[in-house]
């Protein structure tokens, strides 16, 4: 337990007043329309959504996770966090394509890219799944805050969960995405500043960078400073084969949409940017901040390792970075540190409250229940959905211990089997809604078989996760490719409309040629001579 002084509580209360007040101050902008409540009117310069990308992906459990992998694997553990690099290519490919589609959500994009019943089935499925996923993430992140408060003050778990998520909901309910983005900007600055202060403080507490390097060498642990310290090509817990698989998933995944669970959050930031260029830079720079932040944490975790090298309990060493802050910062700064923890917590909570509400309002309520709803009504539905998500997150948060392993499996299942279809839907004109739907459905069954059922009956060995990925991808392709070729392509007229607006990358030759024949595109030859067809 940590003892707070007056100055510590002063920082915490001041921060809460400023952050909630700043969010609520945008009440009038948020209530103007559905577009304002969920996308800030699509008018944001790149640095605002960029700060939101960074703030949203800095949650209470993020330093716990990063500390865990770096304490265990050294600097090479940073590769576990490199999945965020899907934005490297996405920022200049799928972000550009998605921004031009203008879809509010990924679910809505499905009806722009695909056509008819298949497209509507996809929209319904993706939106329902996203409402659930956002509620689940809210519970997951919320209970992490409950654990931090339990560690600090000895509070019951539910207090930290309910208290801070509820405070955050005040400005999300009032101002929607305007409140989220303005609070995220302020929270992002505070969090980044504090991450640097605590990490540098921790490094100095361990004796400074040179002493850390010397001690690691003396301990025979110098490999911890090597970012490429793998356990073999295929052997051990951390082989090169895993690294290559991760690089493929992360980097090549940037050509697609939905190849990372974070895509759905980023999609909202992309559409809130005021131009295609702003959307690209917001995603690229937000992720650059995420990756450099992880690096700063990693340096501090090495300092923690040097001071406490023999911790074997994962749940103990995972709290290492928090311990550097709470055990080594002076009075006053500890309160500021806790304010920064609240900042990283509620920035994530706010984003998922508003995002889940957007899927409910735009894709379920407006599109399927009440297409004639007025703008005012949609804003109010957004608020009610926000409240429902908040209450649902309390329920999930409190039962999280029981369901976490099942839901991590569900997340993995979503990622592996539909990774390739998520790319094909962007880059290949012939891929259709039925192929994509069959990939989702097949993946549900195949994942269970490969991960649990077949190994349980010793039909196949229990495979490491990177091998599961390749096998799930292959088995999925054996189903969705035949389904795609045995069903009709999307109507050419629909594809041409999509192509002219979004200008996707990849194998779109037949569609492009038809568009050129109709005079909808300017044909550009390799020598840059323009030929109007």
């Amino acid at each position: 337990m940590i003892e707070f002084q007056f100055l510590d509580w002063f920082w915490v209360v001041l921060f809460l007043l400023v952050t909630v007040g700043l969010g609520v101050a945008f009440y009038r902008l948020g209530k103007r329309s559905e577009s304002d409540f969920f996308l800030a009117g699509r008018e944001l310069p790149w640095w605002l959504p960029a700060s939101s990308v960074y703030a949203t992906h800095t949650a209470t459990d993020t330093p716990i996770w990063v500390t865990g992998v770096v304490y265990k694997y050294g600097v090479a553990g940073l590769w576990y966090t490199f999945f965020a690099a899907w934005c490297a290519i996405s920022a200049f490919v799928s972000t550009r394509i998605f921004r031009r589609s203008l879809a509010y959500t990924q679910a809505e994009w499905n009806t722009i890219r695909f056509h008819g019943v298949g497209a509507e089935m996809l929209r319904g499925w993706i939106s329902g799944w996203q409402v659930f996923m956002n509620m689940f993430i809210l519970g997951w992140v919320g209970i992490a805050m409950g654990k931090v408060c339990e560690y600090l003050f000895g509070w019951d778990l539910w207090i930290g969960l309910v208290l801070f998520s509820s405070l955050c909901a005040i400005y999300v309910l009032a101002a929607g995405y305007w409140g989220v983005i303005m609070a995220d900007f302020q929270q992002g600055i505070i969090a980044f500043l504090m991450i640097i202060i605590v990490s540098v403080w921790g490094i100095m507490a361990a004796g400074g960078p040179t002493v850390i390097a010397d001690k690691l060498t003396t301990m025979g642990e110098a490999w911890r400073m090597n970012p490429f310290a793998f356990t073999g090509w295929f052997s051990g817990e951390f082989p090169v084969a895993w690294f290559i698989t991760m690089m493929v998933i992360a980097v090549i995944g940037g050509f697609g949409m939905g190849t990372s669970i974070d895509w759905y959050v980023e999609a909202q930031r992309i559409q809130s940017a005021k131009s295609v260029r702003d959307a690209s830079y917001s995603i690229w720079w937000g992720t650059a901040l995420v990756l450099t932040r992880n690096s700063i944490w990693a340096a501090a975790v090495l300092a923690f390792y040097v001071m406490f090298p023999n911790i074997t309990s994962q749940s103990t060493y995972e709290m290492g970075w928090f311990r550097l802050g709470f055990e080594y910062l002076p009075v006053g700064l500890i309160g500021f540190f806790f304010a920064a923890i609240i900042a990283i917590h509620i920035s994530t909570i706010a984003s998922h409250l508003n995002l889940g509400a957007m899927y409910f309002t735009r894709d379920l309520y407006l599109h399927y229940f009440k297409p004639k709803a007025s703008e005012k009504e949609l804003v109010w539905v957004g608020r009610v959905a926000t409240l429902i998500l908040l209450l649902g997150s309390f329920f999930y948060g409190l039962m999280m211990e029981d369901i976490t392993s099942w839901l991590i499996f569900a997340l993995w299942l979503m990622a592996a089997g539909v990774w390739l279809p998520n790319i094909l839907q962007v880059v290949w004109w012939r891929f259709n809604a039925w192929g994509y739907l069959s990939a989702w459905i097949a993946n549900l069954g195949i994942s269970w078989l490969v991960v649990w059922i077949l190994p349980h009956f010793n039909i196949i060995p229990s495979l490491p996760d990177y091998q599961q990925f390749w096998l799930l991808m292959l088995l999925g392709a054996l189903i969705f490719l035949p389904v795609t070729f045995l069903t009709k392509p999307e109507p050419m007229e629909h594809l041409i409309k999509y192509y002219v607006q979004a200008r996707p990358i990849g194998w779109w030759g037949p569609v492009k040629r038809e568009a050129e024949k109709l005079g909808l595109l300017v044909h550009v030859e390799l020598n840059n001579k323009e030929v109007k067809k």
Partner: protein
Amino acid sequence: MKYIKRDWKPGDADEWTKEDWITIIISPLCYILLMIGTVLSFLLNVLGFILLAVGIFLTWFMHWVIDPKLKVISSEYEKKQHEYLEKLERNARWEEIHG
């Protein structure tokens, strides 16, 4: 002709060209260099400072390559955006059949 094209016209900026592919290749490298360079620099490792410097240079170069093109794409697209948004609303409210 210069290898990197920086004077774009609306028609050709919409095409996927070598400038996009240069960006696609450099961008992940920037992330790798910035990430590793930062952690090693915090440990005062000389290699870390070199990697970080290369990462910052490549990040600048990537923007130098792609920014003129993105500016033209954005300004051209914004002229049509209002019309596309109206269509999106009609679609969401079932006032326009797909296709």
